């Protein structure tokens, strides 16, 4: 860049001036067809609401195809996600099995492994979810469409500022031939919170 700063920001401008300047800028860029106000709206909505469960899905898919990675992930989640370039969070990964289903909640506020699964959904932050997930998890899960047999043990993990949890969902049947990237596409945010199970590709497409 030029290194010259002739646009006069040596003093703090009142916010209203900034707001006017940004409106003027948008009006010029729209006029030049460099951007549309609808595109700006879409971007803001997308980034405000959900930065996506992309990283967590990669972690899950890797664990599904690589038993050694799966073992490291369950033993030390923090170190194992760093292997894939994700960090900034102390993480414990809890594994779903045919007899055990894990559910993550933050009863105090809304602690959440957002580096891995994006922004928390609104319901995760609701008082209702935070209290009922602990009190009546089986009912809450049924409301999310997960109907577990009575014999399945449900474990609740209460996130905190110090430690976040991620559910390692069960790999769906019929996915033996899928490559890692395809597996990652099946993994949803809700499955990594524990309020959903991962569906096989045919069911997921429906």
């Amino acid at each position, binding site marked *: *860049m*030029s*290194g010259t*700063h002739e*646009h006069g*920001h*040596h003093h*703090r*401008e009142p*916010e209203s*001036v*900034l*707001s*006017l*300047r*940004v*409106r*003027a*800028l*948008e*009006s*010029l*860029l729209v006029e*030049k067809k*460099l*951007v*549309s*106000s609808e*595109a*700006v*709206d*879409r*971007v*803001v909505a*997308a*980034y*405000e609401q*959900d*930065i*996506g469960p*992309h*990283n967590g899905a990669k972690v899950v898919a890797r664990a599904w195809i690589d038993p050694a990675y799966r073992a490291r992930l369950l033993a030390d989640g923090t170190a194992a996600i760093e292997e894939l370039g994700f960090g900034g969070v102390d993480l414990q990964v809890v594994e779903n099995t045919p007899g055990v289903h894990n559910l993550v909640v933050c009863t105090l*506020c*809304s602690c*959440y492994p*957002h*580096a891995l699964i*994006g*922004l*928390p959904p609104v319901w995760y932050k609701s008082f209702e979810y935070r209290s009922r997930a602990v009190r009546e998890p089986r009912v809450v899960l049924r409301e999310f469409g997960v109907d577990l047999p009575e014999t399945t043990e449900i474990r609740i993990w209460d996130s905190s500022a110090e430690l976040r949890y991620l559910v390692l969902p069960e790999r769906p049947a019929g996915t033996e031939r899928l490559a890692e990237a395809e597996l990652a596409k099946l993994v949803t945010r809700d499955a990594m919170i524990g309020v959903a199970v991962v569906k096989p590709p045919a069911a997921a497409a429906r």
Partner: protein
Amino acid sequence: MDAVPNREIADMKGAAALPRKNGELVFDEAWQGRIFGMTVAMSHDACFAWRNFQSHLIDEIGHAERGGESTSYYERWLHAFEQLLADKGLLDAGALDERTREFESGRRDDVF
């Protein structure tokens, strides 16, 4: 696609990291969201590579901090974006000043 957030943008580190509260982006005022949205939308449309903007932003933040300025993150973002557009020949600073005066005086009143 606009609806899919780009990790390169969402996960910027260090001084350039997007202001967040409990993981969510924070826009203290509406114009901050607009300038964020314009920049991201134009990079999605390949008007410029994100890393170009990011390096302008880092330079701008460094400049402001060395100067002890109390400007907000998105004010610095705005300056960096203006600089980038000028460098790319996409915006004439004089035209922006003039357009701003038109909004200020009420001669224009488009709402975004």
